[in-house]
């Protein structure tokens, strides 16, 4: 928390890896200032290559989306909705002298910044899908891609319910492999905090023990709701087959506006019906072949 100085969980050294403590990120857009320091720190520390300088025209977001070379992504939402108890003047062609003018009119506008990241699912689609065993679960509960093992089959890409992991295209360095946020596993092993949380100037990204963070997040949601942020909620899908995420978000409004799936499911839940159908087809094909030769020869 701000004011804790070096005692903040974002700053102090820890031994979570050695103690096998589950850790997480709590990202709180209500204090994010959209500085993108997390994006920069992530790229710097992890030596993630640049994947092109393009202008999107979507607010101040020229990053676009998470991918093989974007492990932190600050989103800029511009919505015609109320933010807390803010007072907005009317936009557009209105005459302030007119009696129709109302400073608290129905022309609300809000700007929301939130830093997106790999969710490190409790039940991870990418980890289950990986045929090489390249993707593993670490001691702190995060999901890690071992770059030297990955052969770039691309199956994790379509198995992630959040569209996080991707295969890095040519001609970038280390092309062909699948990449995503490592939760700075290398830093954590040495007792350091992930780079994005370390640099976050407002502690919008909070790193810490998962159980502590969940308590902290629900308190924050309650506090915001009491302060007029009526649409503040926690995005942590624990009721779905993903069974919760290790990097959860406080969001204002609906998850869809953030490009977050409202009910993410791990694709392995579809295996049973698909394999049943496959086995039935296999048996039917064998029977058809036997019938063909037995009765039509």
């Amino acid at each position, binding site marked *: 928390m701000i004011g804790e100085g070096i005692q903040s969980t974002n700053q102090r050294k820890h031994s979570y890896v050695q103690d096998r403590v589950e850790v997480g990120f709590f990202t709180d857009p209500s204090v994010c200032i959209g500085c993108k320091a997390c994006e920069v720190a992530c790229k710097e520390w992890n030596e993630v290559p640049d994947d092109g300088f393009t202008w999107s025209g979507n607010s101040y977001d020229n990053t676009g989306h998470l991918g093989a070379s974007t492990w932190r992504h600050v989103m800029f939402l511009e919505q015609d909705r109320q933010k807390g108890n803010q007072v907005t003047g009317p936009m557009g062609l209105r005459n302030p002298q007119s009696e129709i003018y109302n400073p608290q009119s129905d022309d609300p506008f809000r700007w929301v910044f939130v830093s997106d990241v790999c969710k490190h699912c409790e039940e991870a689609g990418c980890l289950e899908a990986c*045929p090489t065993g390249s993707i593993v679960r670490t001691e702190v509960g995060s999901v890690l891609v071992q770059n030297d093992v990955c052969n770039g089959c691309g199956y994790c890409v379509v198995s992630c319910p959040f569209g996080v992991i991707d295969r890095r295209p040519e001609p970038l360095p280390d092309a062909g492999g699948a990449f995503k946020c490592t939760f700075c596993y290398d830093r954590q092993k040495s007792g350091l905090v992930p780079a994005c949380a370390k640099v976050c100037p407002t502690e919008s990204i909070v790193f810490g023990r998962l159980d502590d963070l969940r308590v902290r997040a629900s308190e924050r949601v309650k506090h915001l709701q009491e302060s007029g942020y009526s649409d503040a909620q926690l995005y942590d899908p624990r009721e779905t087959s993903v069974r919760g995420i290790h990097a959860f978000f406080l969001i204002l409004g609906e998850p869809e506006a*953030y490009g977050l*799936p409202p009910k993410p499911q791990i694709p392995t839940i579809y295996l049973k019906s698909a394999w049943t159908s496959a086995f039935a087809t296999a048996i039917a094909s064998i029977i058809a072949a036997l019938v063909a030769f037995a009765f039509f020869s």
Partner: protein
Amino acid sequence: MTNEPQSEKRLEELREQAWKDGVVTDKGVDVAGGPIPRKPGYYGQPVVKPPVWTWEVPLYFFMGGLAGMSAVIASGAIIFHHVDLARAAMWLAAIAGAILSPVLLIMDLGRPRLFLNMLRVFKHRSAMSMGAWILSLFGACAVPGLIALELHAHQIFAGNLDQFLRVAADLFIFGSAIFGTLLATYTGVLIGATAIPAWFLHRTLLPIHFGTAGLGSAAAVLELLGHRIPALNFLGFYAAAVESALLIWLSVDKHGVADRAIHEHGSGWLIRIGEVLNGPLAIVLRLFGQVPFAAVSFLIGALVSRFGWIAVGKVSGSDPEAVFASQK
């Protein structure tokens, strides 16, 4: 300024009103590139990632289905003493399944040199891992099966060794048939158990389609190679009938926005063209005795629909509204 004539007209109306009344109380128009996003989700960005797979994968689906089901036909032919047909079918299984399929799969990898890492682990919860093992075991059965069959057919050895080769050929060919049925159908599980809406919504249909298309393709290729026997004609009818039923299923079992990639866009056309070619058209051509044309129609249909399903995945995976709709 806006890009749309409609908005431009609305602006004109507002200007008129402002000129007349001195004040405008109505809401204006969305300016092109204006601040409030009107695209679904977050600036229309995909929610899940579309597949990165290129042409190798749908072609592999086709080859794998062809090879796997050839081994099934070879087994039937062995049991009912069609030795020449069995030999042709096993050559087909070995070339398509043990050579072309692995080559295509390796070509598609981002790091082809590390293809052997596929066999580092055995994960029954990963259809890709299961597929790698199924393909390996299929090749490990089909190639020795073909060699033993050919040695036996050419009477290279005599006596007990020849008898041993005959038994070995039978066992290996039956083994390749078992793994072959899985090789032809697991690809449907592979794309059915993903986060792509148009794929997972049809996870029951996909293995039936891929497996049956494989069986029909194997019969069609063998017929084109000159094995015009009633048994293969029956299998051609069976496969085309099942594909026709799937065409009806697909047009009835619609999920609206969630699987619109199957019914709209170029991807939808690929699916439809493929299904018509290997369903109704193949049946009609067979009924009129045009077996070679029916075989060609089925093969093209099976190939086109494999490309269609990958195209559907790319469209559906890039469509945020489809993901939201599938989770309603």
